């Protein structure tokens, strides 16, 4: 058992152990806090130390046993390579920050114990997804993440919208998972094994491979909230803000992107699948950015923004920008988690996240203002923050594929490029709008105050990461690629300058609209389109009409079938038996004379029979 192999297993098991003990001692708040923070912290330290070994050159696939299935066996195997360990460190780091933050944010919550245990379980599951070599083992982690996410969204289950959002998230992601499962079976059948290492080495271009990979994209669309399975993410904001930061910004939704990266060797052989991914990403990017423009709730702006940025990552992967897409994943994790936690601070301070109720927070919450400015600047893509470099590398990869060819058809690359540029404009607009509404303009009525240290420190840490990752722009992607693919981040001047112009244009548009509305909501300039955008282009309404109502009607039909068809058979059989039972009762009326009559009749019959037999 090598150090790396054991380390990887321990990284997965530690948060799981923290989850189990956290559940056991959940009622003792201080102990639960310590268990949660220590478990995640130890996992982080271990992940970093194993990561150092792996970045230094140690690669390992460790197997812990085989499960025979009668078809393709399932190998309980973990994989330690730069991709897994980079993401493992990222997951552990964000999880640790969120756990520390939660000790304060949910400090007085009566269900803190179960919350912290579920977050630890979730961390363990995500680490399993990232470190697994076998697709079915990955699926185990994938599904556990899904259930933890649904349970955590429903943390405030007293609220009907939280309950509804939890069920919605579960159902929508599982719809995608059906395609995912079949896709995995196709891949396993093609390669004779579920292990990614074997699949990558064995598969060849074929229609079956394309079909399998497109099915896997269903699961990616569900988990990473891409059109048409994006509908659960905005509603998931009903959960606690640290959960939004961890699960719905940095880690779980990134699992879809990670899966594409993991199976990249196979995807490179299927341009059709890449084209499908590109179209999905391009549509989602713009769609989500437009929806973010009209939201009233700051958290929903961030949720739609996450959907849009995930589309960026997937678009980057689709055009062949492996390291670009993954770099954007990591930098997005940092600044989006930062933004969500800062939004949590605002919610903690003034009790609401509605932009219409905020204003002028720049003076009252100075530190939060600067932190959120850094986060929004990274989102928009302002140099020298990490967001600028990662976004530019995605756009450059798209330009490269459009002009010089790549692993997907040319038109698809152009689509990603144009959608990406349009989204840069829109991102600057909605981020600018949020910034102006929250921190500038007329002060809100509610007095605000700065948060306690447990909430501030993770914010400082994530801000530092957002800034520092910018500096790592040229080292990190190479580290991700090392030994696997041609390296790095290349910035093309044309797209970079074009996108900076678009950023300025978007920000300016938001600013002038804001001034025109007398420093109230710039989105009012959208006019009649505003409610449609705010409603996510009425996609929810479409799903309700085409899917939800028919299912309810079918359910009512089934109940009616049970009530009016089967139930009468059951009660009818009872009634028949009772009627049959009542028949002899006709002879038992309690009338003595009737009984004697019966005896007499019987005697006469017996006598006649006796005489006849003689």
């Amino acid at each position, binding site marked *: 058992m090598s150090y790396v192999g054991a380390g990887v297993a321990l990284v997965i098991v530690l948060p799981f152990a923290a989850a189990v003990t956290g559940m056991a001692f959940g009622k003792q708040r201080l102990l639960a806090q310590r268990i949660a923070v220590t478990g995640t912290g130890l996992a982080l330290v271990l992940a970093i130390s194993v990561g150092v070994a792996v970045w230094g050159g140690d690669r390992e696939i460790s197997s812990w046993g085989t499960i025979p299935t009668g078809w393709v066996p399932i190998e309980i195997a973990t994989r330690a390579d730069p991709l897994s360990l980079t993401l493992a460190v990222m997951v552990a780091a964000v999880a640790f920050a969120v756990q520390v933050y939660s000790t304060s944010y949910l400090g007085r919550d009566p269900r803190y114990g179960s919350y912290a245990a579920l977050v630890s379980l979730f961390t363990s599951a995500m680490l399993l997804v990232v470190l697994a070599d076998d697709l079915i083992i990955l699926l185990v982690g994938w599904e556990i993440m899904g259930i933890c996410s649904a349970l955590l969204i429903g943390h405030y289950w007293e609220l*009907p*919208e939280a309950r*509804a*959002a939890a069920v*919605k998230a579960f159902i929508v992601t599982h719809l995608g998972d059906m395609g995912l499962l079949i896709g995995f079976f196709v891949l396993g059948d093609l390669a004779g094994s579920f292990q990614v290492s074997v699949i990558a080495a064995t598969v060849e271009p074929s229609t079956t491979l394309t079909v399998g990979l497109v099915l896997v994209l269903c699961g990616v669309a569900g988990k990473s909230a891409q059109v048409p399975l994006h509908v659960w993410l*905005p*509603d998931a*904001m*009903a959960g606690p803000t640290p959960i939004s930061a961890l699960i719905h910004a940095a880690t779980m939704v990134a699992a879809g992107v990670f899966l594409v990266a993991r199976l990249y060797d196979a995807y490179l052989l299927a341009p059709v699948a890449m084209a499908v991914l590109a179209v999905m990403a391009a549509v989602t990017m713009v769609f989500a950015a437009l929806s973010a423009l009209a939201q009233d*709730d700051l*958290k*929903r702006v961030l949720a739609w923004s996450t959907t849009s940025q995930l589309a960026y990552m997937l678009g980057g992967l689709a055009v062949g920008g492996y390291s670009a897409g993954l770099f954007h994943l990591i930098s997005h994790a940092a600044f989006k988690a930062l933004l969500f936690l800062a939004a949590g601070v605002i919610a903690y301070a003034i009790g609401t996240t509605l932009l219409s109720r905020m204003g002028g927070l720049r003076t009252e919450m100075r530190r939060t203002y600067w932190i959120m400015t850094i986060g929004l600047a990274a989102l928009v893509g302002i140099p020298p923050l990490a967001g600028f470099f990662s976004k530019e590398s995605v756009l450059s990869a798209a330009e490269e594929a459009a002009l010089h060819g790549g692993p997907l058809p040319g038109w698809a690359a152009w689509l990603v490029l144009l959608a990406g540029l349009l989204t840069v404009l829109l991102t600057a607009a909605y981020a600018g709008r949020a910034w102006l509404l929250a921190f500038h303009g007329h002060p809100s009525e509610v007095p605000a105050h700065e948060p306690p240290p447990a909430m501030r420190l993770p914010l400082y840490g994530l801000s530092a990461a957002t800034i520092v990752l910018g500096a790592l722009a040229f080292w990190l992607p190479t580290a991700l690629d090392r030994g696997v693919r041609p390296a790095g981040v290349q910035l093309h001047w044309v797209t970079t300058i074009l996108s900076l112009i678009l950023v300025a244009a978007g920000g300016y548009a938001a600013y002038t609209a804001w001034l025109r509305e007398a420093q109230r909501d710039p989105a009012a300039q959208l006019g009649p389109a505003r409610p449609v955008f705010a409603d996510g282009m009425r996609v*929810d309404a479409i799903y*309700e009409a085409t899917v*939800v*109502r028919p299912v*309810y009607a079918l*359910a*009512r039909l089934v*109940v009616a079938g*049970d*009530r009016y068809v089967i*139930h009468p058979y059951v*009660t009818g059989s*009872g*009634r028949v038996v*009772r009627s049959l*039972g*009542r028949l*002899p*009762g*006709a002879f*038992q*009326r*309690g*009338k*003595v*004379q009737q009984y*004697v*009559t019966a005896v*007499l009749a019987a005697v006469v019959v017996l006598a006649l029979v006796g005489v006849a037999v003689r």
Partner: protein
Amino acid sequence: MSLAFPLAVSALLFSIGVFGVLARRNAVLLLVSVELMLNAANINLVAFDAWWADALHAGQVLTLFVITIAAAEIGIGLAIVLLVFRARGSSDLDDLGILDERADVPEPIEADIEAPAASEPHEARA
């Protein structure tokens, strides 16, 4: 005299007694009819004893037994009728239906299936 005459009388009396038992509404008259049946049996016994004329005179002996038993039985029977009359206020046999099996049949339990709670799906809005 041939044996037929007492037997015919006995049969006639027995029939009248059976009719009375089956058709009388008054409990006392029912008991009287039972006595009539017993006495018809007694006539039968004595007639046959006269015809057989055996040494033990079994018929006559049995007749004495029947008379005694009838007396005891009618004493108890009348006592019961008296108590029933005191308790129920009437000795009319048609009114004494407590042991009617039909009244004891319980009604079937109707278990109702609940209608689906939310017939209209509601939207989740943050």
